[in-house]
């Protein structure tokens, strides 16, 4: 049981590419404080970066003045991360990239962010907001790597 369980940190970023790295640093700091292993922290950082980039691009349409909010909540043995934007959200499941189709040009080269998020964390859920006061968000849960503690 983590001594910080129940604690929450929130970080707000402008919708500008590059700032996802600030969210990565915050998330990494939080996970380090909880005692996550170095390799789980790498997984978390990539998932948080991809979620922030999607929130900036698809959610906030790259309008730098609309912030992306990242809420990090410490649970007993896991960290929950909500990445929120002002867009209308996602309801289709994360596409699994097909490298053969990408190589043949049948599928775009890009489009791997949601897949990577899902593959790297323990839970990933996309929730659409109503748009006006309810934000859309992706909720990630990453558990501590028991083996490497």
């Amino acid at each position, binding site marked *: 049981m983590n001594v910080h369980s129940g604690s929450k940190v929130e970080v707000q970023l402008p919708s*500008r*590419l*590059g700032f*996802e*790295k600030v969210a990565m640093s915050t998330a990494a700091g939080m996970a380090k404080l909880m005692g996550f292993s170095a*390799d789980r922290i*790498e*997984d978390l950082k*990539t998932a948080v*970066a*991809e979620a922030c*980039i999607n929130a900036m691009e698809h959610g906030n349409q790259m309008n730098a003045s609309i912030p992306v909010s990242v809420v990090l909540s410490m649970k007993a043995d896991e960290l929950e991360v909500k990445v929120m934007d002002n867009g209308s959200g996602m309801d289709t499941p994360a596409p699994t*990239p*097909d*490298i*053969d189709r*990408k*190589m043949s*040009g049948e599928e*775009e*080269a*890009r*489009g*791997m*962010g949601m*897949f*990577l998020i899902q*593959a*790297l964390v323990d839970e990933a859920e996309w929730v659409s907001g109503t748009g006006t006061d309810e934000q859309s968000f992706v909720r990630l849960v990453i558990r501590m790597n028991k083996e490497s503690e």
Partner: protein
Amino acid sequence: MQTPNKVSQLQLTGASGQQITCIRFDGDISSASKDAIVGTYQALDKDSNKHILLDFKGVEYLNSSGIALVIQVLMEASKSGQTIAICGLTPHFTKVFTMVGITKYAALYPDEAASLSAL
């Protein structure tokens, strides 16, 4: 916006004697790296650069948009009969490249030395 990548190129010789064009990247590999990744590749003569090694050792940050640019290079290289190998990825990004299936089209090596002994 991200800072532009520094890219350097060098000619190496593999253990089997083949000529390898090595491209070293540094900085962030993201959507802002189109020139660095795709541009540098496209500027190479396709006939005299048959074997290309992409070295990511100096790279601190890589995201899915950056990986998409690598896939674009793999695609063009495959069409023109060039082989691509990749080295210098951290264990984390070795895992990520494997997850998206890149290993089906490019061999991954820990570093340049390991690439040269294998090629």
